[in-house]
């Protein structure tokens, strides 16, 4: 029983580690995109995708 739990703990550790590395990449890439958005003008196209989808 303890062996099974230990395996589960190690699996959780592995998944957490993989997720943490991937999340760091998300932070870096989206951070750069965010900076671009901040300096974008309001008159650039803004497609309200949610509008149509929301009507389903």
């Amino acid at each position: 029983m303890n062996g099974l739990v230990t395996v589960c703990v190690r699996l959780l550790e592995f998944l957490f580690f993989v997720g943490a590395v991937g999340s760091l990449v998300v932070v870096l890439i989206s951070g750069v995109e965010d900076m671009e958005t901040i300096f974008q003008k309001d008159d650039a196209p803004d497609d309200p995708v949610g509008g149509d989808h929301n009507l389903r």
Partner: protein
Amino acid sequence: MASDSNAIRPGSTRVRIVVATSVMLTFISFWRAAAIVLNDLGSSAFYAAGIAEQAVGKAAPWFIIGVMIFSFAVRAVYVESCSMFVRGGVYRVVKEALGGTLAKISVSALMFDYILTGPISGVSAGHYIAGLVNKWLATADAAGWVPVAVHHIFGGAPHINENLTAVVLAVAVTLYYWWENTKGIQESSEKALRVMQITTVMVVLLLGWSALTLLIGKPANNAAHWQLPPLPIPSNLHFSESALGFLKHTQFAHLLGLFGIMIAFGHSVLAMSGEESLAQVNRELAHPKLKNLKRAAVVIAIYSFVFTGLVSLLAVMIIPDNVRVAQYSDNLISGLAMYEVGPNLLKLLFQTFVVLVGFLILSGAINTAIVGSNGVLNRVSEDGVLTEWFRKPHKRFGTSFRIINLVVGMQLFTIIASRGDVYMLGEAYAFGVIWSFTFNSLAMLVLRFKFKGARGWKVPPNITIAGHEIPLGLFSVFLVLFTTAVVNLFTKSIATVAGLTFTAVFFVIFLVSERVNRRKFAHTEQQMQEQFQLLHRDQVDTQGVGIRPGSILIAVRDYNTLNHLKWVLSHNVEQDVVVLAARLTGPGSAEYDLSMDQIFSDYEQTLFTRVVSIAESYGKHIALLVVPARDVWSAIVQTANALESSAIVAGLSTKMNAQEQAFNLGRAWEAMHEPKRQTLFQVVRPDNEVETFRIGPHTPSIRTEDVHLVHRLWLDITRTKGLENVHHSDLVTMALTRFAHDYTVSDRESILAELQRLEERRAKGELGRPKPRDPGQPQTPPILRP
């Protein structure tokens, strides 16, 4: 068209009009949206670090900083979900991806989060105030200002019971915001903005003063130099017994390694509580919605990183170890203020300022929690999961007061049951936070495979293998959230028991309520019905509808063909937009006898629900209007006239072409009583091609050849002595006067015959027609501006 068939008659004959206003259709800037979210997210700085250190030891600030960095990634998931669902929120997203049952479970977890946000914020604010009062009393006692008798009564410096004070204050603030929300949320965003402005002043002062302290102050704990908190490695983690939860008597408590890091991370996720409010404010964000959402998200992420992350780090560095947890765990920033470098009185005054700001932001979080819970339960209710009874608008204020009462009732119960224990509340709170985030990210992950349609934005990075897109970023965020949530289940015993109980109770309520609804409305489509506050108006005017003159009036009838509404909203129109639905009544029905239900039926409710949904997706405000009418054209032109609209916009009819629509509208305009004003009529085709007509007297379009003819005549006439000053318009006036004379007195028949021949030549294409517009060219919207 006979004028006596008109729906709205000027003068003394008045009919009843219903103005339908969406309960919460108010749009706000991204600054205000960020302020609302930060009232919740930023408030965590006042208690998250204290709770985390009690649980994991002195290395806690590193985990808080780690959580704040990770919150950038969680924010990305929320931006993607909000870009897909304007009325976002975990319920809608999870329902689309995983079905109704999991959606109900996830929204129950979210409700647990929201319900606890209020109590933890209120109780924390109470601790800050009680701590300050005790500090002032101790200072006064030390200075000998307290009477000896009082000193004896307390057996030392007078003091107040911090837990009791915290409970009383939390109850008082919660009741205050209950009343504010019952009245309506409009002023809440204004208050949130002010609170965040004051908080920013405090944060700048705190960081600046802390930097000065680190530069010239004496290091804490009698150390030779300032020390950073111990590194976040397993050997530096010192878990309290309660922080290990169900694992405390097992060998796994000592199985640290990365598992220990995960436990510590799980105890710090509280620092990003409030991120979920982003979905709540998304609905209210002004145009351009997606950009403003991203901007708000960036502001929120940077602000909370600086505030929560850096302040928790500085607190551990500057406040000595022996007092930090013992005295200041519930009011850590007060402790930081008191251990800055400088005179005591100045520090006490700064602590007072900190407490004042803390009280404001924490009480703001109570408001955000009430608004958030209200929004979530409204969405759930609209989907038929809660009975209509919950969403019934308040008679006077139009708010969903029953939901507000329910939420506030549960918050008050939690505050009293907690007895002012911030740590216990924090432990329980984390359950709702982590599980609502986990459900949301899982749902977004599933939607990547289930719904491959357009999205406003996607969490990066995504790689494509053999034509299949793999959402690496989204999957990574989900993994961290899921593993942390699982670990928390075992290490946060209070949270697990309280959270699971609450979630189960709420889930059962949703389940039972949904079944009741299904039985009650077996034959009615109940999905996504907006509740409207119906206001009677005896006559239509700009003041009654709440718009400025020069508005654009959009006539709607079929909720499946609203592209003309989208066309108007997609242009940056500065005018107010009024959406009008004419409720046709039978020729024999007496208008005065129409009841509210007759005027605003289920059909109008569905129609306006869609209209509001579209307006929300563009982040633009619209006014809604229903008028009873026996003739739709009369209703439109008379409403436009009464509202002083500059343009009327309609979709292309299925029964007639645009010219016939304009002809009917023109006839109705002619039949209307004076005073009446000219207007523009625009018919938007399904392909977004627009035909524009002028209604009422207007300058006719003159062919180039006719302009040249007038000019040649003018040149010839002005050569005559004495006629040098004649204008082109004089020629047109004289020609028209002679034409009118001939038509009415002498030569009517031959003029009509001539016009008949002209019409025949036009029909054969012998006369020039205006060139059609190139659909590929961008067109300026031909909407009149005032």
